[in-house]
């Protein structure tokens, strides 16, 4: 089925579900309980108001455990001013999508805030709750989209890059034949030789790899910040370009062609269910055909919920400086340093 259609239908169903629940409670509109992972913004931290009201109202009649009353009985949910005032304190936990009647909601929230993993989500019988399950499906769909999507040409142009191909012509081949993703097409080699400065200190390459969303969302900030960092350090950065459907070791071919000191490859990581847009920066000192993996190094987990892209770019500059100073990367660098 068409992925866009699936997304649309999922949204419709979830919104409908939520609209119902909201009107059951007190007829007020409230923010959606399921948070869609928005690819364009950081995940919201606002909890659902509706859920709090349910919990607060329940609190009135018991000191110990919180009772959640039937959703049909809307009279039970009149909010008194004192309840309103106490909202601030329990603001950060949303009972409905999580565990029912947690013994220690504050502690639970503290634990949940420490990880993006799906903990404390509660259950309905032996299964996850509907919201949790839909969120899971949605994240899975986003991961699939990230693998099969393409990077927008507009971004590549905005960064002033040109685009070349590997020996892969379609995504199915890319997945089945990793070796093709490590080799540049003949045409690509010609273009690179024609357009790029030879023997720069640093050669930056971008590639979608397994996540086009990683490049679309995060590459620009890493790239611009890295550019500034290299400039401040006085390192010459050659002519950066974009390789479509590349694998990490494609940097070896680029190394052969252009003979830079260091290659930095910003490439989309295999998407997971927490983030489908995580970016890695692979570095290698003088990569050539036959370079062993131990000589590569990587800064991974660059995305809005991980290492902030702009900070990663600034940090990469200092790593590159070290690689150039010791004329080594990866395990060799550790040996030389220590």
């Amino acid at each position, binding site marked *: 089925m068409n992925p866009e259609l699936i997304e649309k239908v999922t949204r419709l169903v979830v919104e409908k579900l939520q609209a119902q629940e909201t009107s059951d409670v007190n007829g007020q509109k409230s923010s959606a309980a399921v948070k869609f992972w928005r690819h364009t*913004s*950081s995940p919201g931290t606002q909890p659902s108001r509706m859920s709090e009201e349910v919990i607060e109202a329940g609190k009135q009649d018991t000191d110990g455990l919180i009772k959640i009353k039937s959703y049909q009985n809307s009279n039970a949910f009149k909010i008194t001013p004192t309840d309103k005032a106490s909202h601030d*304190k329990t603001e950060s936990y949303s009972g409905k999508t999580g565990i029912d009647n947690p013994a*220690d909601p*504050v*502690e639970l929230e*503290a634990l949940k805030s420490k990880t993006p993993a799906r903990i404390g989500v509660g259950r309905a019988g032996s299964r996850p709750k509907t919201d949790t399950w839909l969120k899971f499906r949605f994240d899975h769909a986003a991961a699939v989209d990230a693998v099969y999507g393409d990077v927008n040409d507009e971004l590549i142009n905005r960064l002033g890059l040109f685009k070349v191909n590997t020996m892969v012509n379609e995504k199915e081949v890319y997945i089945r034949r990793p070796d093709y993703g490590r080799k540049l097409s003949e045409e690509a080699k010609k273009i690179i030789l024609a357009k790029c400065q030879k023997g720069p200190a640093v050669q930056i390459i971008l590639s979608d790899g397994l996540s086009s969303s990683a490049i679309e969302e995060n590459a*620009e*900030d890493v790239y*611009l*910040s890295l550019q*500034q*960092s290299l*400039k*401040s350090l006085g390192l010459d950065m050659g002519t950066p370009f974009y390789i479509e459907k590349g694998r990490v070791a494609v940097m070896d071919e680029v190394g052969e062609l252009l003979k830079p000191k260091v290659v930095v490859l910003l490439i989309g990581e295999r998407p997971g269910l927490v983030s489908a847009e995580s970016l*890695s920066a692979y570095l290698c000192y003088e990569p050539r055909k036959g370079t062993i993996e131990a000589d590569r*190094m*990587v*800064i*991974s*987990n660059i995305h*809005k919920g991980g*290492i*902030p*892209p*702009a*900070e*990663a*770019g*600034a*940090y990469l*500059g200092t790593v590159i400086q070290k690689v150039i100073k010791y004329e080594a990367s990866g*395990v060799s660098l*550790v*040996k030389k340093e*220590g």
Partner: protein
Amino acid sequence: MLKRYDAQKENIISAGIDIGTSTTKLVISRFSLMNMAGGTHMPRIEIIEKEVLYRSPIYRTPLLTASSIDIQAVERLVREEYITAGIEPADIKTGAVIITGETATKHNAEEMVHSLSDHAGDFLVATAGPDLEGIIAAKGSGAYELSKRTGKTVANIDIGGGTANAAVYRSGRLCGTCTLHIGGRLIEFSDGKIISISPPVQQILRLWGADLERGDSRNHPIIGKLTDYMAEVIGRMLRKDLHREDLPLLLGHDPNWTEEIDYIMFSGGISECLYHFENAESSPAQYDDIGKMLAQSLRNCRELAAFKWVEPDETVRATVLGAGTQTTEISGATIHAEGHELPIRNLPVYQIRFDNNLEKGLHQITEAVKKAVEIYDPQQEGQNFALYLTALPYLGFRDIQELSSVLLKSLQAKPMPEQPLVVVLESDHAKVLGQTIKVQETKQSIVCIDQIKVEHGDYIDIGHLLQTNVVPVVTKTLTFHR
């Protein structure tokens, strides 16, 4: 053979000095710093181990007169202890001098603590204040750890010669503090006779219409009644139920936590009277005051028996251990700090809340800098301050550039704009922001650090850049994590 991959490591020496109402003591400890991030991440340097290398004996606090400390005697004492410990002042990379209890009210207290922090170490921070005492003692006694481990609400009550400082923690979060004029030295004896009664106790006696004067026998029955009463007041304080007639004993604000307390722990000199952890030799100071009676009253108090008592890890040394081992924080590892500007001491913090809205935040900056100058440098003498940017939204590179240029522009409001621009960020953006500011204005000196939690109005001290590219930071006031 394969070489094992060793994570980046570094050791630093920290000192803690506690100058209290009755006693003065010192500890030297070693912190091990290590990069705790995986090999594929940006470094994250943390303190992984704290080892106490040396504990001094417990000395009587040297006084010149009743209202002034013998600064030279204290400095001599510290110097001699360093020699015994085999430490040079220059070895000390971080730590705190804390002046506690009634000693903090002596007329030369401030001079004392600043002179000591200047002479006794490279980066030794001067601290004082009843709330801070309570917090530091709770960390030294083990109450903070206990709350973190058990998730319970734990109150630590550190009772020394002059004050009882309570700090309440739940799951490692500070819930609140309270300080009372309750301590061993509030009535002192000599040759079986009373030689001094402190003013708060005199007030209580007046309220009771009781008659107790200098020269009376130490066995006067009213003294027992008084220590029993003090124990009850501590019980009421823990329940946030202080009576109007208890107020003469309250120092500063009312108890400000909202939680019900599960466990209580006593530290300080009075706790030593309860638990006897110390060797007799390590404590040359002997006390002729109501300390022991107060300890007895605490033990017999019904109000206090209702709580679960937990023995502390440390009694009389809780505060000094807290000061020596629990005051230092480590900044993020990707920062921009110009070495020649460090260390920076006593920098007030001005917070700018972005509320996850960049536009809104940027608009506030210029105004905030003007206000910070008004508050912290009303005479335009050049008192620098740190800008603490919180609740920042996600920042892309262009956002950073914009933020940087607004910050630079706002500096014009400072009487000395060429002073280092000190920025503290909650989120991990210090390196890119520092670098961007430097690119936009090469002459501007910058200290931009991140991943430090402070509060508006706190004072911070920033130490030298360490080999692991982090800076030690000591924050000096309350941090309530509600």
